[in-house]
């Protein structure tokens, strides 16, 4: 196979990931690393760095609009981001020091666990938060956003802030270690544990990726894991794909695509385990 075929194929696959991720409502990062590491000849070091750059770029592109519309909340994000970005550095250092075959097997197990979370988590559009906890009151987390589908303002607040921040410790660690975007975990924590409305949880999760993944990405970049011909076609492919995916969203069948994504992740997770075990 000619050398240039691999970057072109990577671009095409990344484009497809971008389209599918938007239609299925999942982050591109969680699909990127297991699929590319399982089926392309690139070393896992370069794939993980690319995965972080992909998630980071998507977040940077979507962030401004989400912040302006109040669908991402800076006060909610800042404490969570500080925790997750710090532990993502530790995760990146740990991941870069681990033997690759152990990392592959662990990645496969984590991907299958992510599938379990995706299948079992039931999100709530407007969780009931009777009263904010002490930490939430001190931090002054809570705001209002305009729910366009109902044409009304939604005043929201959160609770269980310490528990939520504790969860972000592990989210950052996993994101840094495996180069995964953390959207699959951010949303359940913000929505189910802390009680933020679903749209604010999703918007803030997307925004958070830029901060969490930036600190981990720097560790990979400084350790020599940035391979331009892997990172850049991936970033451009996923971003273009997500633009198309957003256009297709109204016509797509989210449940069918979500089942496809879950199937892909199961296959990629098993492949990662097999690869790590030497098969």
């Amino acid at each position, binding site marked *: 196979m000619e050398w240039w075929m691999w970057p072109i194929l990577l671009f095409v696959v990344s484009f497809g990931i971008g389209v599918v991720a938007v239609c299925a409502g999942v982050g591109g990062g969680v699909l990127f690393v297991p699929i590319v590491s399982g089926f392309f000849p690139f070393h896992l070091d370069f794939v993980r760095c690319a995965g972080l750059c992909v998630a980071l770029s998507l977040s940077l592109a979507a962030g401004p609009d989400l912040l302006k519309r109040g669908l991402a909340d800076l006060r909610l994000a800042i404490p969570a981001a500080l925790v997750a970005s710090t532990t993502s550095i530790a995760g990146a250092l740990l991941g870069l020091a681990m033997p690759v075959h152990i990392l592959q097997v662990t990645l496969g197990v984590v991907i299958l666990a992510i599938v379990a979370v995706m299948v079992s988590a039931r999100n709530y559009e407007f969780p009931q938060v009777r009263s904010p906890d002490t930490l939430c009151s001190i931090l002054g987390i809570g705001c209002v956003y*305009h729910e366009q589908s109902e044409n009304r303002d939604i005043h929201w607040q959160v609770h269980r802030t310490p528990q939520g921040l504790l969860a972000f410790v592990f989210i950052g660690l996993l994101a840094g270690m495996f180069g995964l975007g953390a959207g699959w975990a951010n949303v359940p924590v913000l929505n189910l544990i802390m009680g933020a409305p679903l749209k604010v949880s999703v918007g803030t999760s997307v925004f958070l990726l830029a901060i969490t993944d930036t600190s981990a990405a720097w560790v990979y970049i400084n350790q020599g894991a940035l391979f331009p011909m892997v990172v850049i076609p991936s970033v451009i492919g996923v971003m273009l794909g997500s633009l198309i995916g957003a256009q297709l969203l109204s016509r797509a069948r989210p449940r069918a695509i979500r089942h496809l994504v879950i199937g892909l992740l199961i296959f990629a997770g098993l492949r990662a385990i097999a690869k790590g075990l030497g098969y």
Partner: protein
Amino acid sequence: MKKDEQSTRLYRSVAAEQLLYARILGILSKAGLAWLVVTFTLYAGGFRPPVIPLEDLPRYWSLSREEYLGAAGIDAGWSWLRLIGHGDFLTFTAVAFLALTTLICYAAVIPSYLRKGDRIYGSLALIEVAVLAMAASGILMAGGR
């Protein structure tokens, strides 16, 4: 409600720091992504000779990062700045710019928080800048070169 009135209502309910962050992020992210496309075009199009010839890439992309650095004769950390005359490392400037965007946005909102007397968020943002700066500096190494 007219779209303009609706937008105004939305923006008014959002804190000033959040709007400031969004404005700066919008400018920097678009500029960074455009620069990414430009530098990659210069690299892949052969307009800037790379350190590693394009046809030799398959010999390197399956190596671990340590093996790759050793085989290519490249150092880790910020030493790539010495090589930005070459196409492959010119693209690093775009990736680094995108990765610095968050730090710049955070730094921009700190004065706003402190002016309002919000010392908690001013401090949290300052600590985040320190964390990102430490990650970017390259002082944290994991057994690499």
